[in-house]
């Protein structure tokens, strides 16, 4: 079981955020635990340098004492670690690479296992059956409890599930993919595949880089917010009328835009836990409480008007 909201740990150790320091990270992690969040989403590659986020998160967990026992630690392998795990020749789904990456992650986290271990992105060269077999081993060895895919296509999720049931290997039980009101492409293939195979979906970017918080309006960004310094291009390409209609939709229902963004995701079939980054304890508390609204059919239809579902590419 995991909390409906999970904490994204990508920004731990990132320059220019309050979580750049260990103290800032500690306070966000402990605020998350206090707010009832049990799922923490890190990856080996997260942080200023690869490994920073895992190391800082591991440290923060140790600071929690007993409370750390109930935490579900998610980590990932498969993105470019810039040589940290030795030469990988791009085959980061291979057995040898996975074993190295996992041991390195466990060491940085200071734990003897990872609860949910994601294949961060398919490497395009390793046969999926080899990746599954290698992951099957680490599950049997007790180093990993469950495995999942991230950034995999619907067909890759289906293929892996077939391979696992044919061969008897451990199945992927979760899929972490880009999904929010502004980008609903996961509805085309990933969600239906997850539904068919009983896989839990963890949407990332629930706030579309903060655009769905309502704090960005007509090209203006509050001081210190992420988009103003890291992705100014995104502010330029945003459809501000759409954001205005969204903000109005929320206000009509006495909700914040953030409540709507989170609650809508949480109400989607197959969504297990919404992964949101936060740079302060206040943000964490707000986010943890943001899935209490249950949208009715009218609300969903109105949201579809503002954020149309992706156009089907065939009759399925």
């Amino acid at each position: 079981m995991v909390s409906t909201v999970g904490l994204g740990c990508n920004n731990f150790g990132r320059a220019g955020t309050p979580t750049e320091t260990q103290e800032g990270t500690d306070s966000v992690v402990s605020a998350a635990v206090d707010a009832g969040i049990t799922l923490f989403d890190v990856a080996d590659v997260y942080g200023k340098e690869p490994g920073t986020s895992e190391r800082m998160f591991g440290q923060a967990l140790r600071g929690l004492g007993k409370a750390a026992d109930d935490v579900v630690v998610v980590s990932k392998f498969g993105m470019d670690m810039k040589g940290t795990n030795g030469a990988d020749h791009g085959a980061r789904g291979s057995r040898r690479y996975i074993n190295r990456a996992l041991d390195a992650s466990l060491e940085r986290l200071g734990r003897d296992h990872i609860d949910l271990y994601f294949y961060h992105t398919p490497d395009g060269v390793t046969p999926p059956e080899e990746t599954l077999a290698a992951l099957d081993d680490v599950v049997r060895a007790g180093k990993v409890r469950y495995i999942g895919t991230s950034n995999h296509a619907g067909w890759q999720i289906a293929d892996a599930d077939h391979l696992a049931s044919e061969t008897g290997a451990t199945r992927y039980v979760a899929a972490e993919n880009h999904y929010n009101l502004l980008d609903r492409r996961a509805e085309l293939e990933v969600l239906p595949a997850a539904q068919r195979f009983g896989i839990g979906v963890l949407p990332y970017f629930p706030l579309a880089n903060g655009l769905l918080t309502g704090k960005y309006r007509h090209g203006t960004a509050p001081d210190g917010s992420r988009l103003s310094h890291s992705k100014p291009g995104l502010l330029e390409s945003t459809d501000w009328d759409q954001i205005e209609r969204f903000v109005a939709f929320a206000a009509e229902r006495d909700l914040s835009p953030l409540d709507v963004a989170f609650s809508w995701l949480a109400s989607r079939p197959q969504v297990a836990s919404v992964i949101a980054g936060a740079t302060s304890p206040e943000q964490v508390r707000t986010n943890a409480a943001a899935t209490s609204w249950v949208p009715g059919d009218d609300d969903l239809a109105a949201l579809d008007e503002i954020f149309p579902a992706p156009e089907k590419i065939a009759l399925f």
Partner: protein
Amino acid sequence: MKKIIRALGAVAVLGFGLVACSAPDADVEGSGSGASGSASSSEDESSGGKDSGGKNSGRTGGCGASTMRAGESWSVPIESGGKHRMYQVTTPAEYQADDQTPVVLAFHGMYEHSETMKRLSGFSDKPAIAVYPQGLDGGQGTAWQGAGYSPKTDDVEFTEDILDRVESDLCVDKDRVFAAGFSNGGGFVNLLACRMSDRISAFASVAGAYYEGTRDGCEKASPEPFMEFHGTEDGVMTYRGGDGKGGKYLSVEDFVDEWVVRNGCARDAEVDHPVDGVEHRLYERKCRSDTEVQQYRIDGGGHTWPGAPVHVGQGRDTPDLHATDLIWDFFTDHPAT
């Protein structure tokens, strides 16, 4: 031309497990073959046991390779008969890539998993490469060929493919390749005894399910060392034989007698009682080709693996009789001749 080069590149990735297409020579660890897929180099083929002729001897392609280290456990994907299959393999604590090491193939029961067999039998604790193949689920639960409920697949071919692969990945003593199985897996071992004795030298079945289909080809079988364990109160595959989930099956006495006859042994066994309530029958007089037949009849015993650290099956366990130890001793007494 371009296509061929790309295809070869893919083989390099498959074979070595991690090397990128562009740098097939960069595999400093020099393993003969990695964990995946159906790729096999020409070297693998010439060293695979099947074509090596004669009984058996010779180093396998995996000698000197560093595919696995000592004391490791891998799940290995393999393509067989056009299907994706898998087996688990463990190397013994003292494994050295230069030492020819015996192999035990251990087949799980119906509905079970290779992991179950690993825990149940504990062959991984013996100085052998232990291989636990995974049965397919044809819709009625995982099972091996030879019963009415078996999936439509050629598991003998699968076993051949596994052995080819193990021999090319690891340093195998081809004179000491053995097979054991539980229940449906025990029945399947009988099929292997009749069909694959060119590569496997001794066989053991615990609480075996001896359906008609597990004796397919046995008319032409050669004498082989065989060991059988069965509880008289086995409620799944009854000692007296009958009609089961997978069709009609032989009684244990008839099954053992078939081997006694096939091996040309005298029918009068030497009998002893290694533990209370267990009758051990040894048929070794007059047997052909240095074979023998051994049977452990466990009075009141259920459908279990005697001495197993975990309870799998039905009925009474037999904690004082250690099937795995007895099987291992029997196996090591019967290398290929």
